[in-house]
């Protein structure tokens, strides 16, 4: 019995890995055959970014059971830390592969550090209070990054929290982080292949964590905190672990994001609470705790607004309606009953019964 359960689990995970690899192979073949539109080609790296974000948030929301609304903040930290590194070393380090590898490590480490520091106070709170505090931290990160001015000249680094003049740089100086204008000129190092590799690494980390002793401890805390505590599970340690890993993976997504566009600025649109909520929508729609669902939902919901471009003015309106309708269909008690009655399996079952009756 136990062996069978394990097999099922492994099989399930293999399907998830396989799906990602298959998607890559199919896309590569189609691209070689020239059958992929520029829009889709341009969307490949963003898709990888969102998939990583969704999977990493699922670790906190689904596995650890904490509602976090500040995930975009960690992405922002990863993006800025790595873009700063890449821009600074652009001339010195010309091997783009090595530079990007280091950038990923730096982005992940910076985001992990923030996740750890923020996690310590935040994880003492519960439920909606935790949600609002993560939202608050996300907004603080965005707000603070918008007032950082950092430049480099012959005398070394200059920093200001007011404006670019206050740095008093030499004329030969270069402004690296220009407050709200952010970082421009980041090398275009992200690619679909690297994105896919990063997704696979993310999946590997998350899936292994879930199926390990650590994962079981985290889920025990989610399901019943007091019972978990009474059997000697160190609550803070495990919660913090999940939170930090998730933040660091979000940082990796940020690295991918930053190296795909030549301009990086912390706007409400890309690193504000709206983005955090969008990632949460991926997780909820894909099924809380369901890793494969997160991947699919992230892909579908990122493509949806692009595919609705033909509707022009009604595009975002349709997106909103689809969102509400899907939630009601998948989550409401009425919708679930409807689905069970008309699901594929039920219909097949009915046919079988009919056949048998005949």
């Amino acid at each position: 019995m136990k062996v069978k359960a394990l097999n099922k689990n492994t099989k399930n995970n293999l399907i998830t890995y396989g799906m990602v690899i298959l998607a890559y192979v199919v896309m590569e073949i189609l691209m070689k055959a020239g059958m992929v539109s520029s829009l889709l080609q341009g969307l490949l790296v963003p898709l990888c970014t969102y998939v990583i974000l969704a999977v990493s948030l699922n670790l906190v929301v689904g596995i650890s059971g904490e509602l976090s609304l500040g995930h975009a903040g960690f992405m922002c930290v990863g993006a800025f830390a790595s873009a700063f590194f890449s821009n600074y070393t652009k001339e010195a380090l010309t091997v783009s592969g090595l530079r990007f590898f280091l950038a990923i490590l730096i982005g992940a480490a910076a985001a992990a550090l923030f996740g750890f520091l923020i996690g310590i106070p935040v994880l003492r709170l519960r439920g909606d209070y935790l949600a609002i505090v993560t939202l608050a931290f996300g907004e603080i990160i965005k707000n603070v990054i918008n007032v950082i001015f950092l430049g480099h000249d012959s005398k070394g680094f200059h920093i200001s929290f007011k404006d670019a003049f206050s740095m008093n740089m030499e004329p030969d100086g270069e402004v690296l982080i220009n407050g709200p204008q952010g970082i421009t000129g980041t090398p275009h190092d992200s690619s679909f292949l690297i994105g896919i590799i990063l997704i696979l690494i993310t999946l590997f980390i998350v899936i292994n964590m879930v199926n390990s002793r650590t994962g079981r401890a985290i889920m025990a805390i989610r399901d019943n905190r007091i019972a978990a505590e009474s059997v000697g599970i160190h609550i803070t340690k495990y919660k913090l672990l999940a939170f930090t890993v998730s933040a660091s993976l979000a940082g990796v997504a940020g690295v991918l994001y930053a190296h795909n566009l030549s301009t990086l600025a912390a706007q409400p649109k890309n690193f504000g609470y709206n983005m955090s909520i969008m990632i949460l929508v991926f997780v909820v729609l894909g099924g809380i705790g369901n890793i494969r669902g997160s991947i699919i939902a992230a892909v579908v919901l990122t493509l949806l607004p692009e595919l609705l471009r033909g509707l022009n003015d009604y595009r975002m309106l349709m997106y909103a309606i689809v969102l509400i309708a899907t939630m009601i269909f998948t989550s409401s008690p009425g919708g679930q009953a409807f689905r069970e009655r008309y699901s594929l399996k039920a219909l097949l079952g009915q046919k079988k019964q009919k056949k048998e009756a005949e």
Partner: protein
Amino acid sequence: MKKKALSLLLACAMTFSLAACGNSGGDTQAPAESTEADSDAEAGGDAETPAAGDGSVFKIGGIGPTTGGASAYGIAVQRGMEIAVEEINAAGGIGGVQIELNFQDDEHDPEKSVNAYNTLKDWGMQVLVGSVTSNPCIAVAEQSYNDNMFQLTPSGTAVKCVQYDNAFRMCFSDPNQGLESAKYIGENGLATKVAVIYDSSDPYSVGIYEAFRAEAANQNIEIVSDAAFTADNKTDFSTAVQGAKNAGAELLYMPFYYTEASLVLAECSKQSYAPLFFGVDGMDGILSVENFDASLAEDLMYMAPFVANSDDEMVKSFVGKYQEKYGEIPNQFAADAYDCVYVVKAAMEEAGVTADMDASAICDAMKTAMTAITFDGITGKGISWEASGEPNKAPLIVQIKGGEGVAL
């Protein structure tokens, strides 16, 4: 079971969406074609009806925010372009070839802007007019440079928008505006104590402010108070206005858009504070704010490329058409966009490109043509372009008198 059903549903959706991706090019053509049908009707049918497809029309793409917080600017650009395209098509097109326009939304987001660009590429765009806002424009310029696609931005003011040789702009650049306005204030002795309010989350506003501040020292202007606001915190200006008032500023410099300016002006009146007001080209449009009390803006000065009530025949005709079609007075975004289409036409005629050339060949030809043309439009006369992408045009100082903008 539940999860399985859900993932099945989502998988189906994905397959569907991927399939739809392939023919999305066909969907997006619909609105553009209808625009064209309208113009054909106006022309009385003497222009030959273009069949959609390569080689028979020039395909011009446009990118800008038509939803989201910055949509007012994107929609104005879209409308300005539509009017220009209709006029050109009615008059026989470019060298007898009709223009087809396709305008895509980018929500004022660099990532969405690149998506919009790729959508247009799939559609077969040959020339790009866009993006409307600076950061998205920088991101798109990177792509258009790689593809060697000719790009003309109506309103991307940041320096880096035109850093590559394929990109040109219609508007003034940020440093240019800051410099010119400081010069104007200093040379005309308008004030020596100046307060500045600026949007620190907007590169446009910061860029102008920085240049203004650098030039202010040369012009004997003292900046007595500077207050920043951000995109998330732009409803309450009471502290900013009070700060300027307490510092005894004689002039309030406002390098940001008219939406926020209308709030600042209302707040000043609330606090009975009446300095001179000086804005930049983003201020143009303040009188078009529906239901705005124009007396609040009396004597407000701003830099603008264009005045809607000018006597110029071209401006009159454009404003009339715009009002008839959309029921409002066009702002400088619409005007710049309108001129953009005509600049593209002029450069195409100069370069002698034909509709069956591909985007890269058109770009190469137009790059050189751009520096050769001299353009008379509604945002200036005798405009010429540097190879760097910057236009040579003189800014106009406009003052609001009796509820109307008057050129000084």
